[in-house]
């Protein structure tokens, strides 16, 4: 796409260098732990070594003798204010601090407040807790068996560990269809627990100013405004009123969904600051972060496809058991307990579909957040892209040919899926064809055939995914009742410079640059002259925050709409200055000119000055506007990825030789940033496919609770990604954009798994659960008698 604006203006389509970078490359970012307030105290947390136990006693006497320790807060202390439990976003409850029972290993048990980090840690060591272990439930299937210990005894009348049942589609019709189908395939697929592991952990500084009665919380949050409202709802009864709460989300060192929830540590720090009257800082260490913060995935899926012999896919059925840990603390829109999982028909025109899911309690940390994805889309995409390859094997059909045969054709958009979504736009065959050409698909298949003859293991895997992002339209989407709009407020100053504030919060996506480019596109003010601010609830307009790839689809749209309101007023001012009718004016980015007399023109900067110095009579002064944008639909980014792997028969090591990613996120704001988002997303797609997992032993002890065991990819494991694009604009988004931050994380895992399975398919392998570790592969090679 050729940019409409000049390089000096830097609107959409320019690879503008990022405006936020000068401070980061100088070490002058301002992250939560960089902030030091006068008189600030430090908090550290005592955590449970048991996954399930009764707390018989907590002895804080020795801790209070530690020099520098000022207080130890327990659940009993919070219970006095009815703050020991809090609501989750999914209408469940979770403990802030326990009064009698711990439900998972590393659960918060007490908090030590001290004058230094070191003293707080000493205090934690000195707290004595007497536990009596209880039976532990780790396996969600066993949790559902009759006679399993009931975990949530706090819930009156609860007799099992079942949380909720959710289903979409026509159960009976799909059953009948499957019964009559020519070909049926079925596959169990497990997506294990993983953790976003942003390099900055979570933390906050709670600063309660007694004189003003005002609470300021500097906090690692992706959704500062929603957090303010949650705090007011949770602690309103002890006098925290929303107008006296200010949440500041400063620079964030990554988020990926892990900084959406309200963690107990935040609430305890707030309580401590209110009780003690001093600022209290709490910063998790990495082990706390991995062991106690919200997890992602943990879906046990059984996927089935029905098809005709010619490869036409006609039916889909997926049944899932979702392990939520001891509380349903998923961060989904209220009406979607399984997120947007019903996008599981994917890129294919499937007539019959049904999916159902049951949420289950176990003795694991609560959660169910995204890991760089829009509400369970990764799970859905993994299921459909994996089972499609299983069908290809069954039919002995090339997986590319099978996909091409079943894609929703371009002329069917907007496309209404059988599970209820209206896909906005797409051209799936074009993306796959481009990826096949770039990687040289036919040649690779020939090479594979030759290598097989020599006993070498090489595989090619495809994933043609469709995402669903930009939540969301207010008729369906809310969080705690708050509709999922987002907002922008733009003020153009007399000198023609501007400030734009948004309800979202960048965690590395580059909003200071891309939002400025959106405003530049609409107003012709150079992006360099537009300051972008987010994250301070005292100044930014209310918005739901940044996650689920919603910043560009929702807040970006709000930015465009607010800019257009400003342009409308600017037109009136220009007409006044040029003494012509508004209809006689023509807009090009940055100026209004008189039709047929282009030398008669006023620049946006001249108009801005006039808005404060010479505005028409009867018009209010100033040049500013606000937009709360309610998207008419979600957006549906898509892409086709092809991965080539080689497998070492001696070690089981999978090496990604090449990976081509063709993405379509609609119109592009900053191509450089889009490529960067895709590189990062691909790496976070490869990570769970090959490396990352948080598992538990039978006692509920976490495995993979530090970077010793939780394998975040380094530059050595990460291949050199090859990226390209097609552009199919969203028809309903004001800029035709769709959002891109998560596409690659969603699309990459099945491409990798499909490649590994493809390498082993001639040995009878149909599926491997992730992470595909060398040990797993080597065990298969050994079983099949081909290990070297």
């Amino acid at each position, binding site marked *: 796409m050729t940019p409409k604006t000049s390089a000096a203006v830097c609107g959409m389509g320019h690879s503008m260098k990022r405006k936020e970078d000068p401070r980061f490359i100088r070490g002058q970012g301002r992250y939560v732990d960089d902030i030091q307030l006068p008189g600030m105290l430090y908090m550290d947390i005592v955590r449970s070594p048991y996954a399930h136990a009764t707390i018989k006693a907590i002895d804080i006497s020795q801790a209070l003798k530690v020099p520098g320790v000022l207080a130890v807060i327990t659940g009993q202390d919070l219970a006095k204010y009815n703050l020991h439990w809090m609501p989750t976003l999914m209408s469940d409850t979770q403990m802030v601090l326990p009064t009698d029972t711990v439900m998972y290993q590393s659960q918060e048990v007490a908090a030590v407040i001290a004058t230094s980090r070191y003293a707080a840690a000493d205090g934690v060591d000195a707290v004595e807790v007497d536990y009596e272990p209880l039976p532990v439930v780790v396996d969600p299937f066993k949790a559902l068996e009759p006679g399993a210990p009931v975990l949530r005894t706090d819930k009156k009348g609860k007799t099992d560990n079942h949380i909720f049942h959710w289903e979409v589609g026509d159960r009976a019709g799909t059953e009948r269809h499957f019964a009559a189908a020519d070909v049926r395939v079925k596959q169990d697929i497990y997506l294990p627990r993983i953790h976003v592991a942003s390099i900055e952990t979570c933390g906050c500084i709670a600063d309660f100013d007694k004189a003003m009665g005002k609470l300021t919380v500097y906090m690692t949050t992706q959704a500062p405004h929603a957090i303010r409202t949650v705090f007011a709802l949770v602690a309103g009864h002890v006098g925290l009123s929303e107008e006296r709460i200010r949440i500041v989300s400063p620079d964030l060192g990554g988020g990926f969904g892990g900084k959406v929830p309200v963690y107990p540590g935040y609430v305890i720090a707030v309580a401590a600051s209110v009780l003690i009257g001093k600022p209290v800082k709490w910063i998790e260490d*990495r082990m706390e972060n991995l062991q106690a913060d919200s997890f992602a995935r943990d879906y046990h899926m059984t996927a089935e496809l029905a098809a005709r012999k010619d490869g036409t896919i006609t039916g889909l059925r997926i049944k899932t058991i979702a392990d939520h840990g001891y509380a349903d603390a998923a961060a989904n829109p209220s009406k979607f307990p399984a997120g947007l999982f019903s996008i599981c028909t994917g890129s294919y025109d499937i007539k019959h579909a049904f999916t159902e899911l049951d949420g289950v309690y176990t003795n694991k940390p609560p959660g169910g957040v995204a890991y760089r994805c829009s509400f369970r889309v990764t799970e859905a995409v993994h299921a459909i892209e994996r089972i499609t390859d299983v069908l290809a094997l069954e039919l002995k059909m090339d997986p590319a040919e099978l996909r091409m045969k079943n894609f929703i054709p371009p002329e069917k958009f907007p496309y209404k899926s059988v599970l209820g979504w209206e896909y906005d736009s797409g051209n799936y065959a074009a993306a796959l064809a481009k990826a096949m050409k770039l990687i040289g698909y036919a040649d690779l298949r020939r090479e594979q055939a030759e290598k097989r003859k020599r006993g070498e293991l090489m595989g090619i895997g495809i994933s043609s995914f469709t995402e669903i992002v930009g939540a969301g339209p207010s008729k369906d989407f809310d969080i705690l009742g708050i509709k999922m709009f987002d907002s922008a407020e733009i003020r153009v100053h007399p000198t023609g410079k501007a400030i734009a504030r948004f309800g979202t919060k960048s965690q590395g996506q580059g909003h200071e640059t891309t939002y400025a480019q959106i405003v530049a596109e609409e107003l012709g003010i150079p992006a360099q002259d537009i300051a972008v601010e987010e994250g301070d609830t005292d100044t930014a307009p209310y918005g739901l925050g940044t996650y689920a790839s919603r910043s560009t689809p929702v807040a970006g749209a709000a930015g465009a709409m607010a800019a257009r309101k400003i342009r409308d007023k600017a037109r009136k001012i220009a007409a006044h200055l040029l003494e012509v009718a508004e209809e006689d004016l023509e807009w090009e980015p940055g100026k209004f000119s008189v039709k047929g007399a282009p030398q008669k023109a006023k620049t946006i900067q001249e108009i801005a000055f006039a808005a404060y110095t010479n505005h028409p009579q009867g018009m209010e002064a100033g040049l500013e506007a606000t937009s709360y944008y309610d998207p008419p639909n979600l957006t549906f980014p898509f892409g086709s990825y092809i991965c080539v792997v080689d497998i070492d028969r001696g070690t089981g090591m999978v090496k990604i030789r090449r990976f081509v990613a063709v993405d379509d996120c609609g119109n592009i704001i900053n191509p450089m940033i889009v490529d960067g988002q895709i590189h990062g997303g691909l790496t976070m797609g490869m990570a769970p496919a090959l490396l990352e997992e948080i598992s538990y032993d039978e006692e509920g002890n976490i495995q993979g609770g530090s970077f010793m065991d939780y394998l975040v990819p380094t530059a050595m494991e990460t291949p050199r990604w090859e990226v390209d694009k097609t552009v199919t604009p969203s028809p309903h988004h004001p800029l035709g954009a769709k959002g891109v931050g998560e596409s690659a994380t969603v699309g990459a895992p099945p491409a990798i798994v499909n490649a590994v399975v493809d390498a082993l398919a001639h040995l009878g392998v149909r599926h491997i659960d992730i992470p595909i570790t060398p040990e797993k592969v080597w065990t298969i090679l050994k079983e099949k008698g081909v290990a070297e």
Partner: protein
Amino acid sequence: MSSHSIRVSVNGAAHEATVDARYLLVHLLRETLRLTGTHIGCDTTHCGACTVLLDGEPVKSCTVLAVQADGRDVMTVEGLEQGGKLDPVQEGFWQEHGLQCGFCTPGMLMTSYALLKRNPDPSEGEIREAISGNLCRCTGYVNIVKSIQYAAAKRHAEVS
């Protein structure tokens, strides 16, 4: 807990401090000297967000005691820019979009700086190996590699 007086040169400036034996170098930098560019991302020396140079060698300052830096030279990200001029690695990361959230960036920059001092013309493989002790969760490393290649070329151009 024993207490020690130490003298440390940080980015060329002499500092004196009295610290507990267990006090970490990263805390000396961040909390005592308020040089907050050096970050903390893990407890196990894996992530490299805290990388600084100790007598020119990259170390992870979360596992170096402040007392171990006594009498030695420390260089942090704040010391890269000289006389208002960005170091080529800083320029490279900005130019090639080698950072997103910026949290790993200071450690990544220090490792890159040390690499180019040691090996002014590294191959892609050598770059990847050199930064393999620094985790980045945002970029997928592709642009970090390009950033370091950019910096290497820039340094060559400056020398010639």
